[in-house]
């Protein structure tokens, strides 16, 4: 048994409550309460983009389930496989991943190992958070640039998807878009940390792993 186990024989009621309602309250991000980090018209646009990301995530997942099952139905009921099914799923998974990374950046949901970070004093944490946001933002913009590069070379090669017979590059346009919006979110997070007294994981999320409580602040 580990030391930890002896010290914690009783379940933490908060953890239980969180796990039980995992899905219902805490986990669900209410998009109508999302506040953009951008001022004025830009903020309105940003909130709009957040909405679109959320809708794309949900629709992508639902379509993936339907598409996969449609293939089964086609095979057994109509004796005909849907040849585009696999390609459509590939397109959807790229869409979900890249709509999701900027949505996750908005809400401070990207996975990180925060143990050492959490142990630092406030000032260091704040400085570190700015460094993290700036570096992450830079990396995302770099990948935006090169995914545009990749996209263009795909477009110029004219490779078609064998079953859908559409250009391959159509399904990867989400990559540069997702990287760009993610880079933007981390950039805004850096600025927010510079001008505000608190430590922000994203423009709408205060530090602390659970973002739910703070989100409405």
């Amino acid at each position, binding site marked *: 048994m580990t030391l930890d186990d002896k010290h914690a024989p009783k379940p933490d009621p908060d953890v239980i409550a969180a796990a039980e309602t995992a899905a219902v309250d805490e986990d669900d991000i209410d998009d109508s309460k999302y506040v953009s980090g951008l001022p004025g018209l830009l903020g309105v646009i940003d909130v709009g983009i957040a909405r679109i990301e959320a809708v794309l995530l949900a629709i992508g997942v639902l379509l993936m389930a339907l598409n996969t099952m449609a293939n089964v139905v086609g*095979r057994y009921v109509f*004796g*005909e*496989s849907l*040849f585009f*099914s*696999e*390609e459509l799923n590939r397109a959807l998974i790229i869409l979900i991943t890249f709509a999701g990374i900027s949505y996750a950046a908005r809400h401070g949901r990207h996975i990180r190992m925060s143990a050492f970070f959490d142990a630092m004093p406030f000032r260091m944490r704040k400085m570190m958070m700015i460094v993290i946001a700036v570096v992450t933002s830079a990396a995302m913009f770099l990948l935006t640039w090169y995914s545009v590069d990749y996209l263009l*070379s795909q477009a110029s*090669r*004219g*490779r*078609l*998807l*064998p*079953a859908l017979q559409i250009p*391959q590059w159509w399904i990867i346009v989400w990559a540069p878009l997702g990287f760009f919006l993610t880079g933007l979110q981390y950039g805004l997070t850096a600025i927010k940390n510079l001008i505000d007294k608190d430590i922000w994981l994203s423009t709408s999320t205060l530090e602390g792993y659970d973002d739910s409580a703070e989100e409405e602040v």
Partner: protein
Amino acid sequence: DTWRYAFEEAMEEVQGKFAQKFKEEVEANSDHEIQLFPFGTLGESADIMEQAQSGILQFVDQSPGFTGALIPEAQVFFVPYLLPEDQDTLVEFFRTSKAINELFPPLYAEQGLELLTMFPEGEVMMTTTNEVTSPEDLNEVKFRVMTNPLLVGSYQAFGATPTPLPWGEVYGALQTGIIQGQENPAFFIESTKMYEVTDYITRAGHNNFTTAVMANKEFFDGLSDEDKEVVQNAIDAAFDYIVDYQDGLTETSLEKIMEAKPSMTITTLTEEQRAPFKATAEEVEAEYLEIGGDQAQEILDQMKADLEAAAGGSEG
């Protein structure tokens, strides 16, 4: 220099053997070193092709079936009963074909690739859970094929239900019965253990799996004449080697399969049994002409002429 060469199969399969011979020849006759990257180590087939186009890889082996998305004409190799079954004629065809040596290289060049050679990997056989002697036997059979319109068309014409499945799921799908058949050359059926989950191997003689070796064009054009010669000689030596290596490979592979699973039934269809399968070729040929790009007709006609010449050549 260090040159990098990626291919679509494992090290000990046909493409890997070819690559190893190529490496051996180049390294024996020059100061260049060749690093080999088998299947999956640098990504999927489409990925290594792109890397060769962008010059990260100097050499790549990709089968025309996969190249079809890039060079539609290359799908001609999926027209059933086009290539001859006789091994000597086949080899003679690959050596002398005008289509391969003159018509295809400009098409590859447009994609930034120098076509170095094409070679056959072996007769494609069906492995199924039920016996197949006629198209009727394929009725209702869910048959796994690569996602290629002509292959799908072929098996539809044969009467089967072509079913796309990622390669990683084929073994399991045969085991549980989602699909009842798949096709591949004998060595691949042996090495990927497809015989463990099927009971019949049928030789309908409908195709021979073809593959192509290419170099990045910019890289190749930039080589000194001396280096170009080293590469070309190594390709020629590897081609001769792979022809020898394949002599009997099909039989050895089938023997290994029978040894591992004595209950396996291997059937070579008679000319009579093949007739109804052959009758469907025309349909697929028409489809090829439709989707095979601008030069489809020209390539098909030239290939037929080349094949006739090769048949004459290897007889005489």
